[in-house]
């Protein structure tokens, strides 16, 4: 796929990326307000990791290739919990696949109050699994 094609595809999907972030944020806010989670999480698009090993075939331009999940309010999150939240997000295959096709290549989980963060390569957690088998 040429560079121009990739850029056009990324641009076409920007509305879908925004819709995905809005859906995540509204669900996070409902969960926080109903006291079912102790931390308010917010997802936003940001620059990804500059390391080339993070990039994949559908990666967006570097400045927009990261998705950050930030703890905004509520109790502070220790690093162990940051890692656990990341693992929980990445163990959800539907979510990982969606982030992959929406051109993100880096998942960052960050506590804005302490500034601590951990990032993951999304492509490492990607498995087309059943989807490919189903089509045969």
């Amino acid at each position, binding site marked *: 796929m040429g560079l121009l094609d990739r850029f056009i595809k990324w641009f076409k999907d920007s509305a*879908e990326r925004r819709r995905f972030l809005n*859906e995540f944020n509204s*669900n996070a806010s409902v*969960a926080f307000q109903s006291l079912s*989670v102790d931390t308010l999480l917010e997802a936003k698009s940001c620059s990804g990791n500059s390391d080339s090993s993070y990039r994949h075939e559908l990666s967006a331009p570097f400045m927009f290739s990261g998705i950050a999940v930030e703890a905004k309010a509520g109790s502070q999150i220790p690093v162990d919990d940051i890692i656990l939240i990341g693992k*929980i997000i990445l*163990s*959800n295959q539907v979510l990982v696949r*969606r982030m992959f*096709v929406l051109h993100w290549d880096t998942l960052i989980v960050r506590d804005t109050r302490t500034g601590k963060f951990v990032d993951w390569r999304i492509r490492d957690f990607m498995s087309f699994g059943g989807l490919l088998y189903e089509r045969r």
Partner: protein
Amino acid sequence: MWFFKKKRDTEQDILIKRIKAEQLDMKDLFSNINNRSEVETLYKELCKLSHPDKFDKEPVKKEIAKELFAQIQTNRNNYNQLMELKGMIEVQLLKE
């Protein structure tokens, strides 16, 4: 005319469309995030309960245990799935 002709979808485009059409369950995700402190304990407990080596003398149960043990590994960070598996272990392995 050739420049108005719509490009045919490639295999990759079809796969991407299917992925975008998948149903996302955000509520499940946030419930897993909320129960994150209990996930590790539950995982260890279930590993102990369903370890296939425990059922060496009962071949039928050993097969079931192998399957459940594999499912526990794949759902390691999914609290709701682990709770469902706990119920299955109690019914299929632990009852006399």
